[in-house]
């Protein structure tokens, strides 16, 4: 009797150690895989990176050299235009839903933003294609920016909301007590205090689309040349990586690793900046 009680206790103790040990192992393992990927991308990519790689356009197969310069430029142009669309729409919608909208409408908008945030980017790419590519019969950077702006909006809306909510009520009341009008309170007090949070949201949104490839396949489409006209098909870094990676040529694989290193550095820098700048106070609930 006491023997079986003892073994029961032992089994429970063993279970305790087993599960705690397993959970530790798994979390360390997953974190290690991230490091593994980072180290591997660095190791493979660093040899490809040179001044020429950063400043030249791709060369045809068989011609040595060439780079992703036009892709980097393309990414910058596409994301800049997307930001110009998404930032005003996102921030203003965020302001409306937090401060002015009737509760039911606010709830609906919040829900819509959350759902939109998780719509597959390829479906958004199809939408951009139908709206901005098909009617004009040519691919364009502009349609890619449109798709990217839709990916950015929900993040900006939700972080704007969360940043505004974090402004202490005391501050608003103080502004009002000093005789500020509604709009003065909003622009001189609330938005000033909420700015770091909104910036964080913007950085996260830029990080998200920087790593995005799928919608570009049938919007920006890619290009072998230097293109700045947003009404033309344009190269983009992550799209170049994709094209190079699935090609059968070893030289192009090396180019892909070089591009991947650039891309991952850009994205991780952006995410870490957002994290440090606002230390997890803003949650977009994604």
């Amino acid at each position, binding site marked *: 009797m006491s023997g079986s009680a003892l073994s029961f206790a032992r089994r429970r103790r063993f*279970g*305790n150690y087993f*599960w*705690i040990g*397993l*959970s*530790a192992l*798994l*979390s*360390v393992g*997953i*974190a290690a*895989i*991230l490091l593994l*990927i980072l180290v*591997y*991308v660095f190791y493979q990519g660093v040899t490809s990176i040179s001044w020429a790689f950063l400043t030249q356009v791709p060369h045809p197969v068989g011609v040595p050299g060439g780079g992703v310069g036009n892709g980097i430029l393309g990414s910058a142009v596409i994301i800049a235009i997307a930001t110009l669309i998404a930032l005003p*729409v*996102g921030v*203003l*919608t965020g302001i*409306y839903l937090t401060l*002015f909208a009737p*509760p039911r409408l*606010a709830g609906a*908008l919040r*829900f*819509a*933003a959350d*759902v*939109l945030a*998780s719509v*597959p980017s*390829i479906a*958004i790419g*199809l*939408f951009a*294609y*139908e709206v901005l590519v098909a009617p004009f019969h040519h691919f364009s950077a502009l349609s890619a920016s449109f798709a990217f702006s839709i990916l950015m*909006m929900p993040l900006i809306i939700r972080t704007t909301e969360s940043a505004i909510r974090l402004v202490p009520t005391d501050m608003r*009341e103080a502004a009002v007590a000093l005789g*500020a*009008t*509604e*709009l003065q*309170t909003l622009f001189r007090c609330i938005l000033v205090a909420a700015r770091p949070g909104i910036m964080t949201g913007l950085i996260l949104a830029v*990080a998200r689309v920087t790593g995005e490839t*799928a919608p570009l*396949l*049938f919007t920006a489409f890619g290009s072998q040349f230097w293109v700045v006209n947003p009404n033309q098909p344009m190269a983009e870094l*992550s799209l170049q*990586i*994709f094209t190079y990676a699935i090609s059968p040529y070893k030289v192009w694989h090396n180019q*892909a*690793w070089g591009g991947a290193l650039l891309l*991952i550095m850009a*994205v*991780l820098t952006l*995410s870490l900046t957002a*994290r440090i700048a606002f230390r997890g106070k803003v949650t977009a609930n994604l």
Partner: protein
Amino acid sequence: MGDGATTTWAAGSGRVSRPESGLARHAFMLTVKAATAIFALIMAGLVLVLVSGSWASLRHFGLRFLWTSRWDPVANVFGGLPFIYGTVVSSLIALLLAASIGILSALFLAEFAPRRLSGLLGILIELLAAVPSVVFGLWGLFVLAPVVQRDIGPALQAAFGFLPIFKGVIYGVNMLTASLILTLMIVPTVMSISRDLISGVPGRYREATLALGSTRWEAVRYVVLPMVRPGVFGACMLALGRALGETIAVTMVIGNRPSISASLFAPGYTIASAIANEFTEATSDLYISALIELGLLLLVISILINAAGRLFLARLDRDGGRA
């Protein structure tokens, strides 16, 4: 977050601030409402445009599209079943793995790990979610796929070869590789939401359980975890939604063959990768329409799954699960 109604700046019932002179306020409200209208228009447009784009295919194939598996652009016959099968199977396997790993590591970070270790591991796992899809694809194609073909595949076949899912020739780019890459991509979602929920459970529940003589694991497993179950379930739904729509990484490692095979070692195809690979090469209008219908299907499924996931999370919020 809960007391949203009282923290709006008009301070609940009565307007506290001086109203604006009419014109400025009018102009401002108009701008703000216009922006919101643009956002709402995009939401509605997304669904409407995809429905109108796939209209030809919807009319031509009807519901048959969902369960016929002949995908023949030359004959203009399109059935989406192989893609639906590949999407569902790869995502469900990924969800199964990611849920187990994600929940256990969330428990470790929230309950067992020393604070600093927990912070460090948490950041690393969350950064995994920031790794671009194309980089996962690249790594999956050149590093993971060979490992699956050479080591993981044969090992699984040796141990469980009697199961149909582990039979047959082992390819490098196959369903299993795609599921493993997807697992890595969605683990952070499960982990970080679950961890936050678990951390939110007040300490007194653990103390009470421990005082009754439970082990630390038992307190967590039988008291803390059940309290946050709906939220964790919601987190898993969000992760599933992410897996279903993931495109580029999957396209690079799944093999892109539109056939239905029981074996996980055989190449497959997903809805998203079919669109990615074939859309710019689609020649006939019906072909394009069929691909857009696939996109619409993906959109509808992901909206439903995400809405459900968020409702579960919201329910937990309201019931005070995180008190």
